[in-house]
């Protein structure tokens, strides 16, 4: 039980810090959200390849995998795993294999919701 509570606290702090870093970037550089997302996923890939992001995931759990840098982490982990078993071909198969569920869900749910919902004017 004690452990369970710590997983939440760690997720909150690690996830919060990652998002806060993104906010500083937005306010300081005026980057658009599309660029922020690209930056985070790419950074996630690089840090994962260097073995750093695994350590953040070990501490933060969902706090590290839910931010988009975690998407980069999943991509990289999948690629490395497939490279181990398939060789160079794995670099091309591993990433999408590992993230297939998320991407497919995003497309499917995205489509269904877009068809069902209408945008609302802001005031």
């Amino acid at each position, binding site marked *: 039980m004690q452990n*369970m509570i710590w997983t939440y606290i760690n997720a*909150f702090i690690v996830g919060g810090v990652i998002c806060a870093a993104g906010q500083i970037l937005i306010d300081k550089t005026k980057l658009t959200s599309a660029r922020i997302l690209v930056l985070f996923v790419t950074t996630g890939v690089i840090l994962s390849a260097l073995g750093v992001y695994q350590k953040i995931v070990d501490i933060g759990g969902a706090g590290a995998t839910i*931010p988009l840098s975690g998407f980069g982490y999943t991509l990289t982990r999948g690629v490395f795993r497939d490279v181990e078993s398939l060789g160079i071909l794995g*670099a091309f198969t591993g990433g999408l294999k590992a993230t297939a569920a998320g991407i497919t869900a995003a497309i499917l749910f995205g489509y269904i919701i877009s068809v069902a919902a209408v945008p609302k004017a802001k005031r």
Partner: protein
Amino acid sequence: MQKGLTKQEYQQYVEKMSPKSKILRNVFRAFLVGGLICVVGQFFINILKLRGIDQERASTITTLIMVFLGALFTGLNVYDELGRFAGAGSIIPITGFANSIVSPAMEHKTEGYVMGVGGKMFVVAGPVLVYGISASVIAGILYYLIHK
């Protein structure tokens, strides 16, 4: 015309005259909301693990749920309100990725289901996939060259 003001000087002047974003406040909000969204994710992982599902599958299922929630709250017209408050706190989590897919698709539905919904779905999220996947392939090739 602007006597005594070059373009550079004018831009410095504009910088001085323009109100700044309240960075401290924004960063706090991003921390709070971003952290809370991750706590929700952690909640699903913990529940799934208690049911005997292994870490990796629990993580994948959680991603599915979070993507669904992001899409749903976008459709309910509330995710943008959250974003207005939280900034990066709701952009960077995977729910924000779902938001970036649903919001242009919804908006361009008026241009039809193929080019509107289908075509515009990835105007914001497309670059994420392009750069994320490309970077991971490069990482994989480097990994192969170094370790194999």
